[in-house]
């Protein structure tokens, strides 16, 4: 447990002592800002019935950030260490494989959450300049961030898995981008199937990222969504762990 914290702290510090972390955050702030101004222009003083968080999510920037940023954050977690050789010094210390995987995932995930914090600033700007004090609902805000965290957990664990497969950061990023896009595109199946109550429609609706996220931004925390995101995360972390363990018997 002690080495888990030591390792997670170092991994997280790795983003901030090198340029990587700042570049990612800068790009995300830029995209969020763009998305924000875009929103303001479109609405242009009209009153809308949706919660503010829903508006942000409706802009395609949300998915753009998710799909682009997660491969870049996660690509270094294993691939960089394998490339530089420090993976060898790491795995020859008495640290368990599970600790290594969890520590790397934790640091990536924490960075991902930190990366989304500028969204809060945007939302507070909205609140500040609207007369209606109820414009920003705390419940919806909390559930939006819960949703962002959960969908991020899926995508960062997927990225860790891609990173453990390769020695090259670029290849790791491409694998995780491809898998991430595939997962994203699966969501569109729910639009293709007619909204009947048969099992296909229900299935595609269940694996759709959109429908789950739609709930979160409206302030609904559904147990099915929790189970969906968490089980995917655990699945990808399990795969990562197995690849790490395979090193010892390969």
């Amino acid at each position, binding site marked *: 447990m*002690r*080495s888990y914290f*030591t*390792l997670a702290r*170092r991994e997280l510090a*790795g983003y901030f*002592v*090198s340029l990587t972390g700042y570049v990612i955050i800068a790009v995300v702030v830029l995209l969020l800002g763009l998305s924000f101004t875009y929103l303001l222009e479109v609405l242009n003083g009209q009153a809308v019935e949706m919660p503010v968080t829903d508006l942000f999510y409706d802009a395609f920037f949300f998915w753009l950030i998710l799909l682009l940023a997660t491969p870049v954050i996660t690509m270094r977690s294993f691939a960089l260490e394998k490339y*530089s*050789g*420090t993976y*060898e*010094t*790491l*795995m*020859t*210390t*008495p*640290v*368990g494989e599970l600790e290594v995987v969890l520590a790397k995932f934790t640091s990536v995930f924490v960075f991902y959450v930190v990366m989304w914090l500028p969204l809060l600033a945007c939302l507070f700007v909205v609140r500040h300049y609207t007369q209606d004090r109820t414009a920003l609902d705390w419940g919806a805000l909390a559930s939006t961030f819960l949703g962002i965290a959960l969908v991020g957990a899926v995508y960062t664990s997927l990225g860790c898995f891609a990173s453990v497969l390769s020695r090259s950061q670029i290849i790791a990023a491409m694998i995780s981008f491809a898998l991430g896009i595939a997962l994203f595109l699966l969501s569109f199946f729910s639009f293709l199937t007619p909204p009947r109550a048969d099992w296909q429609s229900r299935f595609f609706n269940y694996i759709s990222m959109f429908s789950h996220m739609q709930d979160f931004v409206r302030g609904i925390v559904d147990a099915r969504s929790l189970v969906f995101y968490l089980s995917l995360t655990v699945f990808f972390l399990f795969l990562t762990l197995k690849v790490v363990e395979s*090193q*010892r*018997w*390969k």
Partner: protein
Amino acid sequence: MSDEAMIEVSELTKRYSGHTAVDRISFTVGRGEIVGLLGPNGAGKSTTMRILACFLSATSGSARVAGFDVFGQSREVRRRMGYMPENNPLHPEMRVREYLKFRARLKGLGFRATRARVGVVMEQCGLTEVGRKVIGQLSKGFRQRVGLADALVHEPELIILDEPTIGLDPNQIRAVRQLIKDLGQARTVLISTHILPEVEVMCSRVLIMHRGRILAADTPENLQAIMSDGGQVVAEVAAPLAALRASLEVLDGVEHWDISPAEGEYQRCALTARPGVDLRPVLFELVRGQGWRLRELTSNRHSLEDIFVHMTRVRRDEEDGP
């Protein structure tokens, strides 16, 4: 300390798809020994060390460190062993003290123990004045010492160093060798190298590896003794050439001789003795009897280099033969 073996390797084999990196090797290393793994590039030294360091698994065979199985009880082995891989990978963005603390924590040292041990190894490896520097900006010699300090920080019983002096300048090499020699007084050290004088200076025992096999395992002195038959004696004598030739012709115990002119009136004689004969006193008596002058008399022992070249060549001839 008990006298059980620190490393026991038996019938260890590592096959990659297509070729065999390590081929059924067996050896033991006792506690407190400094053992050198010697061999050309690609002989299987690094693979052997990586298996002992629990980074790679073996295809077959067994290896035990301090009585623990490298595959079954790998965590126990890793607790007791400090390993510095080839090329000494470090985190270039970290500071020296920060890195060593991080490594000490990873290796399971407590907060107090970490502070104390990091101080000790930094002192030991001469890193005190660069403690706050970023590793990426250090010279190669200092980085090597950081790697050594890392291998030592948890007071391991066994230290495995893969090519610890590669890429260093002569002064740094000397410093690192001295450090390793000092370590060997309290711990078991296994180092690999393809630089021959290094093992002669540091190691109490040598394992010569070639193409995944161990060709010889002995002390440097014994290996030299095996080859000592047919050693060469060189003398520089001031004498008339004809007289010198005539005298050497009739000298007892000379198998082969050769004269070449040195500067001035001196002649350089290279003599090969028959097995078991020491030519030095014979030559001295000859020179004294004739009233010549002698300014050099040396016996060329075979260096480990000769032994190494000899052994690897013999092996190659056997393999290439019909």
